[in-house]
């Protein structure tokens, strides 16, 4: 049971990092990024491939962040001058392209077979301690990110991105160019998403393309919306709630007899969907109250 909780905590922490990144992009700046999983995959594969070549852990993480940011840059340049909906469409397509490329470029990514045996840090520690140490690393990353985010949002930079979110067309009249602020936020969020991907790859020690489907993007959106978009603690609260929904439904098995495993898997998704619908119906402002109309 303890091992299970460590696993849930680690994955929940990675969701929290993803939600923090999306909350900066959507909650504070109004950028509609439907390609979260694309940057997550770039981070995971970059880090995994480097690690397989013997790259040290911290270098893998840094490379994941940098590569995700580099990929976000041209997307941002193209889309951020246009209206919000274009960014939504392009990022959604981008994430699917990333997955397709991973599937087809076997020489690099091993395609659908995936990459097994990614080294996990703290492997030298005794079995129980290693998992706790990794959980600690993930949670520490969440805390540091949240503190940085708080500083950023309360800075003059944070003021401008919120101004852009509230009324982008009023910003040029103040002598400031919204596109440059949006580009910084978009790349910074992508880098953070890449770091989350790297932590995910090193935790699971095996990655394959079918882990990087659009469903993950929408889970993270649900976390941000349930927590309260544009609220500093919202991303973390939302990710925690999402994890409870995703993991709690595993125990349905104990409650519902007479269904097959396959039926159970579908039923579980249906219950998750129902929980999300009920939550948004009865708590539309999110746990902490949303900041976006």
């Amino acid at each position, binding site marked *: 049971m303890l091992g299970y909780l460590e696993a849930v905590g680690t994955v929940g922490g990675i969701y929290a990092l993803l939600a923090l990144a999306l909350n900066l992009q959507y909650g504070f700046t109004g950028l509609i990024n439907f390609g979260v999983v694309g940057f997550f995959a770039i981070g995971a594969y970059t880090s995994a491939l480097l690690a397989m070549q013997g790259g040290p852990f911290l270098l893998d993480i840094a490379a994941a962040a940098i590569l995700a940011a580099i990929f976000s840059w041209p997307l941002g340049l193209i889309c951020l001058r246009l209206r919000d909906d274009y960014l939504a469409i392009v990022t959604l397509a981008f994430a699917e392209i990333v997955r397709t490329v991973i599937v087809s470029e076997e020489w690099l990514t091993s395609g659908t077979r995936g990459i097994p045996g990614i080294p996990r840090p703290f492997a030298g520690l005794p079995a129980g301690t290693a998992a706790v140490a990794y959980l600690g690393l993930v949670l520490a990353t969440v805390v540091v990110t949240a503190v940085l985010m708080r500083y950023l949002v309360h800075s003059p*930079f944070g*003021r401008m991105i*919120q101004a852009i979110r*509230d009324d982008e067309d*009023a910003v040029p*009249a*103040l002598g400031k*160019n919204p596109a440059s602020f949006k580009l*910084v936020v978009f790349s910074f969020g992508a880098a953070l998403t890449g770091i989350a991907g790297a932590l995910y790859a090193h935790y699971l020690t095996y990655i394959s393309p079918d882990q990087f489907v659009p469903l993950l993007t929408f889970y993270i959106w649900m976390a941000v919306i349930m927590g309260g978009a544009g609220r500093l603690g919202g991303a973390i609260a939302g990710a925690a709630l999402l994890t409870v929904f995703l993991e709690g439904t595993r125990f349905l098995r104990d409650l519902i007899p007479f269904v097959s495993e396959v039926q159970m898997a579908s039923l579980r998704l249906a219950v998750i969907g129902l929980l999300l619908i009920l939550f948004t119906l009865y708590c539309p402002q999110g746990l902490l109250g949303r900041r976006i109309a």
Partner: protein
Amino acid sequence: MSLAVEHLHKSFGGLRVVEDVTFATDPQAITGLIGPNGAGKSTLFALITGYQRPDSGSVRFGATSMRGLSASARARHGVARTFQIPRPFRHLSVRQNLMAAGPRQPGEHPFNLLFRRHAVARRERELEQRADAMLAFLGLEAVTHALSGTLSGGQLKLLELGRALMTEPRYILLDEPFAGVNPVLIEQIAARIRTLAARGTGFLIVEHNLPALAALACHLLVMDRGRLIAAGSPDTVLADRAVQDAYIGGAA
């Protein structure tokens, strides 16, 4: 600073919204722009401030041509504007709305947040003081920390004006600054505009409150259906038969 507009044209589809508009304003003179709804006043504002690109024609402020400059670049040249319908940053406080308009805050670049923290903090204190002085002038002290989304229509008009003034402009285009503002405050704002104009800030003001505008502006421009149909001192322009026809025609 003076504004010179030459042969400005703008069509949307087949509709000519601004047609061959040419005028120049004197420095220190407050210029009013009037005309019936749909005359093209707001589009003219958009063309002058870079929010729309003209089909042809030119805009100059002082000696500087604005050709090809974006709206934000024009604002950095000292050209400020307000919007007919206020555009507050509604989840920011009133004071933060004003501070967002302040120029030269290095902290708007994340790099400086890490490496020039003292310069950022110093500028932030300056902007705070300027914002508070502006709030005092506009009579908005009571709502300093309120979210701007909660203000009344008249308060939003004042915030809109305050935000434009915070950019340290040399030329200001005001789109209906008096709409929904109480008469006492209109007098105060008018007095402030006169003071700024006497110090060399140019003003172009669209306003339907003709008595208030006539008391303020020394020069009026009249637009109707995309064209300038009259220009001159308020007395002569408002007595002009064509102007009266345009207004009555527009109102009917």
